[in-house]
């Protein structure tokens, strides 16, 4: 039986792979927004003991608002205002990155199986694999893209992965939401700070190319 959660996970994986392949900054931001909505929806479709509660829906709405709307909008503005050349500028080519993403999926499944989490239901395991892939992809974006703005996007994708790991491993209880709310708040602040840093980098170097920051070492 194809469960709706599997479709969601597949969509997330696809968005991850696409983000590794995309060569336009705007497309990357859009993908991130899409991924944010998908990730927020995951707790809704997971098999939970309590079913869908009011708290869960409230939490979902807030997550969508932050991950799917607010942060992408901030990034969209940043790209529009700061970046002149909207090419992604990879250090490792798109196809190689895509291949790395595929390896990442295999690696994540391997790791998930080797963690021996026997009491975890099947779809949680799949979720864990997806989560690790998302995190790894975020790291790949962080490490192999030259523009500072892709670093921020990579960081946000990694955060999506971390959130998914939390969802996969934690029982769906009240305290998890409290923690996640706090993380959400941190995330917004982090994005704001990174926006300021981006702006400053742009001011100083007239570009957001991180290779220029090599000049700062002593």
């Amino acid at each position, binding site marked *: 039986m194809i469960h709706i959660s599997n479709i969601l996970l597949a969509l997330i994986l696809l968005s991850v792979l696409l983000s590794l392949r995309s060569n336009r900054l705007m497309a990357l931001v859009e993908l991130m927004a899409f991924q944010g909505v998908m990730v927020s929806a995951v707790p809704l479709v997971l098999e939970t003991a309590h079913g869908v509660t009011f708290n869960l829906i409230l939490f979902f709405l807030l997550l969508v608002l932050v991950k799917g709307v607010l942060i992408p909008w901030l990034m969209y503005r940043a790209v529009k205002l700061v970046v002149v050349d909207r090419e992604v500028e990879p250090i490792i080519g798109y196809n190689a990155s895509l291949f790395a993403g595929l390896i990442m999926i295999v690696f994540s499944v391997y790791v998930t199986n080797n963690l021996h989490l026997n009491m975890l239901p099947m779809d949680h395991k799949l979720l864990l694999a997806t989560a690790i892939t998302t995190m790894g992809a975020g790291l790949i974006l962080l490490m192999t893209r030259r523009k500072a703005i892709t670093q921020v996007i990579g960081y946000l994708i990694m955060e999506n992965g971390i959130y998914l790991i939390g969802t996969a491993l934690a029982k769906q209880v009240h305290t998890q939401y409290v923690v996640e709310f706090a993380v959400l708040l941190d995330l917004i602040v982090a994005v704001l700070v990174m926006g300021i840093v981006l702006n400053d980098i742009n001011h100083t170097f007239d570009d957001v190319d991180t290779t220029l920051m090599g000049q700062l070492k*002593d």
Partner: protein
Amino acid sequence: MDTFLIALLLIAAGGLQALVTFRAYLLMKILAVSTIIGGCGLGLYNAVNQIFRQVEPFVCSCEWLQIFTFSLKIDAVSAFFLIPVFAISAVAALYSFQYMGDKERSAATAANYFFYALLIISMSLVVCADNLISFALTWELMSISSFFLVIYDFHKQAVRNAGYIYFFFTQAGALFIFAGFGCIYAHTGSFSFDAIAAIPESVKLTAFILILIGCGSKAGIMPFHIWLPYAHPAAPSHISAVMSGVMIKIGIYGIVRFYLLLAPTSVLFGQLIIVLGIVSGILGVVYALGKHDIKRLLAYHSVENIGIILLGLGIGMLGVATGHKTMAAFGFAGGLLHVLNHSIFKSLLFFGAGGLLRQTGTAAIDQLGGLMKRMPFTGRSFLVGSLSISGLPPFNGFISEFLIYYGAFHGLDLQGASFILTNLTILSLALIGGLAAACFTKVVGIVFLGEARSEAAAQASETGSLIIISQLILALFCLLIGIFPEPFVRAAFLASRSIPLLADFDSMQFLPVLSNIARTAALFLILFLLIAGIRKLLYSGKEITQSGTWGCGFTQPTVRMQYTGASYADSMVDFFRPFVRVQKKYSGINTVFPGKTTYSSHVQDTSETGLTLFLVRPILYLLGKLRWMQHGNIQLYIGYIVLAIVVMLIFI
């Protein structure tokens, strides 16, 4: 709620309000100084009460973060150390009121008061800490708050450098202490102080040496003393006074406390402490002789006095290990009393140095001269401090050194290495006393007697009234302990009762010995006053002329014909040449009509050059080889982080 906690809250309030009211400069200072003095007074009252009433130890504890217990306990030893903490801090706060007079830097002054309050609180918490975690936490708080106090004049490069050196030493020392705690924890499995005595003897020695290095770097034991001569001249004078007078004693407290907790039976502990004491004591005073900056000189005298304290404690430990009750009681009591005495006269001397610095703008003793006439109160109280630090009656330094001598002489029937070390203790105490007296004849002679060597010294006037009052208070206490030592010695004996061996030992039977000595001192003082009075009486009707000091019949004497500090100390420093390298630069007189000739001498600190040569250089060389890792590529930096995480996930 207990008086102790109320006192701490009051001090905290004094520090915190400064951060809010710093725009109203005078108000901020009045509030800060008065609340800090109030809090210290309350704390002092509580500590004195605790030690003399011999009430049950005050205990208080609270869970923090649900992980560990923050617990406090004031027993006799803690209470004894609380006395200098609160007393000296209060007087230094009074001193700071006029000393911190730069209205332009009101925010920095407010921060200074805040960290000052934090330092007092953390020092008093360290001596009361009752488990490993509380001790470590408050110790760190003390180190960090004092670091911020040192860098008050942060816009000067030299001050920043001094701050970094201090920060490095204090953090490295803390690491050693934590390593020692780790040794203890590995065997007890709890942070509590109770189980420490049960760990194996070999582990005790390792743990004790680690803690000794850590506490020693705070206390300024040679060769871990290097930060002292940098940090003390850099800090404002009342901060130097508190740091040198009180904070380094917290290092001594750490050694005493962990000695008590470990309760070792081997003689090795006492011997180790005595050797360190001899080295710190003698070399400290010799280096001090060679210094020309008054605050740096005083910093080296702190090293020397820490040596004397260690000698006392070492004699006490030897006494405990060999079952000599009298020796143990006198050694510990002498060491502890010297903690109190040194905190008083060293603060007094730093206050005097601060006054000189404030009025003349220089701390170089060879630039000063003849100040006894222009700054009579500062000069006379500095003289009292000098006599006390040299261990001369009728002042307080004599009493504590006498106790240590007394203890050491009781140890002369020991065998082997202990006998030799006891002998050496007596000899080095005598040597230290003599050299310290020589060093302070140099300071007092050059700075306060003779003629002014510079314009600034000639124009100097007496400092502010509060500065003088705080010096007079301390000078009075120097004399008071010298003439009425009984209650103070009793307090030290009561504190030394914490040692199990001495718990039921009647050390009070020796008090009459001391009161006899004090009576002699008082007799001497009365005689001195009497002779001074007679002299005044005889000269009352006669004509008194005044002329230049040390005119010596020259028709055109110049101030440059006077002795300099370097030339005065040269022969004494020369005697210790293998340990004290003196760099001399002398252009020489080669022609019949000599032109401009220059001479300069600089005493090198052997442990500093040794440390630079054998530790700092190799580390810098090794780290230089790793420079390629810093290439400035952010993507690869992230790669490092990922690599580190992966490695940790796999191996840990």
